[in-house]
Every structure is written in C-alpha cells, then in structure tokens.
C-alpha cells in the first residue's frame, strides 16, 4: 500500500468524482446496448439491467463504508484502486459481454437474468463503494455528514447526468459503441492517476 503523503483538497475530490460519474453513466447506457445485443431487447432486460446497476451500487456502498472505517484517510488509495478496477472491466467489456452472451444464449431466461446480474454486479459494486469512501475521507476535515455527502453526491451526480445526456446526443454520433466505452475507461484511469499523483505530491493538492 502506498504511504499517504498529501491530503487531497475538496475541489480536486469533487472534480475527480464528477469525472467518475460521467464514466459511470456512459457505461450504463453503453453496456445496456451491449447486453441487449448479447441477450435480446425486452422490458425484462431493461429492468434487470437498471436494477442490477442499482443493487451493485448498494452492495458497493456497504463494502465501501466498511473499508472507509477500517482504513481512515488511506481509503483514498482504495478509491483509486476501485477506479482502476472499473476502468479495466470497462476496457474488456466489449469483448466479455458478447462472449458471455453467446455462451449462455441457450439457457433459460432466469439463468440469462442471473448472468446479466453477475456481469454488471462487479463494476457496479466498485462504483458504489466510492461514495462512502470519499464521504469518510472528506469527513476528516468536515464533520457534517449531510454537508459532505451533499457536496460529493452533487458532484458525482452532475457528472452522471452529463454522461447520460452526452452519450446519446454526442458520443454515439461521433464514436462507435466500443470507442464510447473506451472513453469511459480512460476517464476512470485519469481519475486514478490524478488521485495517485496528488497524494504522492506530484501535482498540487
């Protein structure tokens, strides 16, 4: 584990969490299309994807909260690792999701639903873990939980809104589906890099 050297200021945290939110919603819209291509389009698929995304966020929140209490200020490093994890899954998802779809297409619909669920669960869990980690990190300087979570949630969700709207009206016009996913992965790697370089003192905190 890298020794924490410098504390990250709130504006930088809010900035990286905004980008993390942009990437998350690009993934949601793009993965939805990949999953539909692999497993078929109907209301059940749509509902399962949305619900799985939410459940993964919830599971991640529980895990992230425990990690935040255990690691204190060093949780920011785990946050960076989570971003790398999300980015790695994003980068392989254009190959992974269609491949899994081919292998499970012949199975029953409950099995297909379970496979959909498991595919999305891992990255969504990592995404969900990030909020309580950053809230706990920020609370070390600002003890008001409501204020901390409000600021972080605002930043992350504004990023998410930007990602959701931009995917449909800009990205899909100029980029292919896979290129759009790679852009989101690049966002995750950028966030991890900024956090890592900041705590190592390579960029101003």
């Amino acid at each position: 584990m890298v020794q924490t050297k410098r504390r990250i200021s709130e504006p930088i945290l809010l900035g990286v969490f905004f980008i993390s939110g942009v990437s998350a919603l690009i993934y949601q819209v793009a993965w939805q299309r990949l999953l539909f291509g692999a497993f078929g389009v109907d209301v059940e698929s749509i509902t399962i994807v949305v619900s799985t995304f939410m459940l993964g966020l919830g599971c991640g929140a529980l895990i992230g909260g425990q990690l935040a209490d255990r690691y204190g200020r060093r949780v920011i490093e785990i946050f960076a690792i989570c971003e790398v994890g999300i980015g790695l899954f994003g980068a392989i998802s254009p190959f992974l999701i269609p491949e899994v779809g081919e292998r499970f297409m012949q199975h029953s619909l409950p099995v297909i639903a379970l496979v959909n669920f498991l595919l999305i669960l891992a990255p969504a869990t990592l995404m969900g873990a990030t909020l309580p980690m950053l809230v706990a990190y920020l609370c070390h300087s600002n003890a008001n939980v409501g204020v901390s979570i409000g600021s972080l949630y605002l930043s992350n969700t504004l990023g998410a809104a930007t990602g959701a709207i931009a995917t449909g009206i800009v990205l899909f016009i100029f980029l292919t589906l896979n290129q759009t996913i790679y852009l989101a992965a690049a966002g995750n790697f950028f966030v991890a890099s900024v956090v890592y370089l900041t705590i190592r003192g390579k960029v101003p905190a």
Partner: protein
Amino acid sequence: MIWAARYLSLFTGLLSLSQEILWVRFAGFAYKGAPQAFGIILGLYLLGIALGAGFGKLYCRGERNLYNVAGVLLVIAAVFDMLLPWLAAHAFSFGNLAGGLVLATSVIITSLIKSKIFPIAHHLGSSSSGGKVGSSVSKVYFANIIGSTLGPLVTGFVLLQVFTLQQCFMLMAGLTLCVAIFCFMAGTFSHCRLYLVGGVVVTLALFFLPGTMIKTLAENTGSKEGPFKDAIENRYGIIHLLDAEDGCDFVFGGNAYDGRINIDFMGDSNWISRLYMLAVVKPQPMRVLIIGMSAGSWTRVVSAFPGVEKIDVVEINPGYIELIRRYDEVKPLLSDPRVEIHYDDGRRWLKRHPDKNYDLVVMNTTFHWRAYITMLLSREFLEVLKSHMNPAAVLAYNSTYSPDVFKTASTVFGKVWCYGNFVIAGDAFSLPSEDEATRRLGALRLDKKPLVDMARPEVVAKLKACMGNFEPYSAVEARAGRPLQVITEQNMLTEYRFGQSIMKSIFD
C-alpha cells in the same frame, strides 16, 4: 430513530426510481421512441437529484426537526408528482418546444424535491452513530439503493403491467404523500393518524381519476389522422388506435405509426400491396417467419400464400393479441393452426432456435430512427437471419426509406430489390413476367376463397402498376446523393448519426 432514517432513505429511492421509469415511458411515447429519450430523461433526472442533494445539505445545518422538514418536502413532492405529468401532456399542445421544456422542467423538479431528502436521511441516520461514519453512511445509502433497485422492478414488471401510465403516476404521488405522513409520525407531529387516513383517501381518489393522459399526449404529439379511439397499455409498451372513416383503423406502437387494419389489395390504405407483391416474388413458401406481428394485417395476407405449412410469429408485445381480437379482418389468424405466436425478442428467439429454417422471412420493422432498431437493421442481425434461411429463401422488411438499410442488405445478400420502402433480399430469386405474376396473385387463398379477383380489369391494372415499382438496389444507391454506409451494431447509424434526433424534433 436510525431505523426511521433508513426507511425514509429506502422509500425515497423506491419512489424516485419508479418515477424515473414512468418519465422514461412518458418521454418515449411523446418522442415516439427516439433513441436519445432514455439518456436525456436519465440525465435530467440525475441533474434534479444532484441539485436536490446540493440544496438538501443546507437543511442539515442547524438544529431543526429534520423529520418534519422531510415531511413538508414530500408533501410538496406529492403535489408536483400529481400535477406535472398532466401539465407536460397538455404543454405539447403548444408545440414540441414548449412541451419539451415543460417535460424537462417537470422531470428535474420531481427528482429535485425528492432528492433533497437524501442528505437529510443520511444526516439523521449517520450523525448519531458515533465515529463509524463510513459504515453508517453506507447503511443509509444501502437502504436507498435497495429502494432504487426495487423501484424499477416493481414499477417495470408489476405496476405498468397492471395499471395505466396515468394510474402509476397518481399511485406514486399518493405513496409519496404516505411517506410524508410517515416522516411527520417520526418527527412526532400531532394528528398523524388523521393525516394518514387523509393520505390514503387522496391516493385512492387520484388513482381512480378518468384515464385521459395518454389520449391527451397522443393527440398533442402523435398523428392527427383521426380521433383517438382506445389504448392498450402493458409493461411492454403503449399501443393506441385512431378511428378511421373507412374502417381501417390506424394502429400506433409507442406513438409511432405501426400500420392499419386492412388486408384488401385494392383498398391498400396501408400499402398492403407490398405483401401481395411478395407473393409474386416468393410464391410458395412452406415455412415462414414473421418478426413483429403488430396489428396482424401482414400476417393475415401471408397466411393466404399457397403452400404455407407453418408461420412462426415472434412478437415482443402480447398487447397486439388483444388488438387483433377486436377486428374481424385479422382475428382468424389467432385460430389458424399454422400460425404459432412466440412472445420474445426476434434475435434472442432465433439464437435460441438454431434448427429453424425458413423459405420466407418478413420483418415488420419500425422507423429506422427509433431506439434499438439497429438490433434488426444491422449487418450482424441480417447475417443471423441468413443463417436461418434456406438457399432460395427471401427476406422482406421495411426500410422506412433509409437508403443505408438497402446498402446493408446488399452486403449480406446477393440480390436486393426495392419495392417502395420495402427491402426484398435473397440469394436466388427473380422477378416473374406479368403473366406469371397474375397467376401467382390469383393463387392466393384465404379461408379457401380467392383473395383477389384477377378477372377484374382494375385488379390486373393495379398489379401491372405494382410490377413497375420494383427497382434494383443500384437505383436506390444512385439517387441517395451520398455514399451509403453499412449499419452495424457499433455505429448505430440510423438511430444516431442519420436518425431523427430528439433535439431536431423539439426545435422543428
């Protein structure tokens, strides 16, 4: 009282995500299934959540009773939840720009007010938990996420199947009111039981309001071909009918034109002659696959082709069956032993039935710019279809005048012809002479009776005119005016790059 904060967080998530599902359906209907609708509504909803969380944190400063604050906010939310869908539906009567602005504002307002609760619930559930900030935050957040997970499941699977969109909106408003009363109870506000009874009564009253929301929205955003007749709503979508003077009612799926109830070659109000011409091109198909049955007119005519032994119909929305039962022209196909209807996604059904092969495949494809149509128009899907077609089989589907649809077909099949907006593709078929076409058309039988009377000169004249409508793919390419491109699942060309963007529709 930590448990009350967690319940508050859970119900806020449930109501919030349920309402998002309802707004997505509302916008999808208003914009006829534009592919950008989902992302834009999701983005606006998240924008509202972000702003709400930003404002909500302000309540956490100071010493006020936050349960009562949450209760008041939720009462306001319930009033807006009830009023804004109506306001948005009526706003479209002033044009797409006004409707779009009111819809966007409504989506933001409804999510903003509820999300103000989010930091309040966290503050209530976390600040009294001593030093365990991370885990206490995560438990309240987890409760919110559980609610957010259940919201789409309950609303998407159950409520929209059982109730109309309007009833679902009103139900959410009523439930929001009930959660507000729960907050007042937790905040030890007096006379709560009385208010609870009042909340239930208001919910029931809202729920049983006359169902006019879809009618209003259809009249303001949809086709004006005739008066609104009826709607069939289920979790798969909204089908509605417009009354037609000639009896051939208009059918709309998700507010986009789906077809008309007509099987008459000479009436031809729905250009059903395209299916008759298919009988000319592919006269005796034994096994037929139809993807997208819609109102059943196409399937009914195909069932008249000589030699047909089996018709597999793959249709996502079972609501069309209810529609078909209402019309004598198409109703018999439901009792035709050769017709088997499968409720599934076309691609998934084909992949799950690799042994099925066909002589004729017909796709009733919707507009080339609608959401997820790439899944049917892409080269990838055409290759899947081809693997289910016998060597001399023919594929026919609607390009809705997108020349790229023809280009894509030309990269998969050896022969591609254009008949109006119809793509007719295969590797081994040819157009017959007029005499042979006359014989083939005369061979159509429905309930053992000839479908067209070839002894009538006007029928023969119409056939002759129809034969003149066939064009080779090269003619489509020549008049396109730009290099045509192949539609793939990667580029989603007709949905996004060359599609009818929701932004264009707003500003038209």
